[in-house]
């Protein structure tokens, strides 16, 4: 098993891109990254943790590898940024404003926080 820690970095693009070489070598891989604040700490009202995705790759024989890419948030911050640039409203459920109120304003969402993905995070994160 090997663990590589990287610091002083920026957005690393798609995690699956970095994992591909690991699967090509017949290894299983897990990639994690933090990001600028986007989601509240459990019970909190301001953005604290990043979108902090977790991705993994599992090679198969004679078939494409299984690639798992879990995002904690319903949408990425970049997507909301795009909506803000285009002055489009965002659907309810993507984000809350800085007062913790659900918002359809992309601009308000960028200073607020993103909601957890309902599909992938059916359990709220618990810190023990």
């Amino acid at each position, binding site marked *: 098993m090997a663990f590589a820690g990287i610091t002083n970095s920026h957005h690393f693009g798609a995690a699956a891109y970095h994992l591909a070489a690991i699967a090509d070598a017949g290894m299983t891989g897990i990639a*994690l*990254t933090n990001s600028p604040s986007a989601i509240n700490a459990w019970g909190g009202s301001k953005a604290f943790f990043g979108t902090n995705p977790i991705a993994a790759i599992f090679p198969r024989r004679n078939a494409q590898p299984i690639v798992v890419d879990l995002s904690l948030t319903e949408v990425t911050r970049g997507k909301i940024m795009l909506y803000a640039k285009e002055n489009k409203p965002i659907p309810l459920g993507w984000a809350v404003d800085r007062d913790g109120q659900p918002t359809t304003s992309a601009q308000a969402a960028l200073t607020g926080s993103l909601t957890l993905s309902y599909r992938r995070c059916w359990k709220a994160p618990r810190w023990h």
Partner: protein
Amino acid sequence: MVEVLCVALTGAALSYENDSYFEPGNKPRIGHALIVINPEALAGADVYYSRIEDMVGQMLTDAGVRLPGARRHQAVEKAQTEGISLADALHQELQKLAGRSRKK
């Protein structure tokens, strides 16, 4: 969990300590963690591959199940045969950025 593995272990900036990705002149200090596990080192590669196929086989007996990564692989194949379409403005911006990095 992600924050601790990517930041506490590496000394990177905590999420709230980073500049936004989208502000000009930003200098985030993001942390990443990469974990690689060799199946040979545990039950052995044969067992690993066999167990994965047992799992996949069982998963796919449920008609609606999509294997994680399947959509991605299809998209890659499609892009390789059909290409992808880029807006002219984006294409030009990419060329410009590529040209800038070549000069370094």
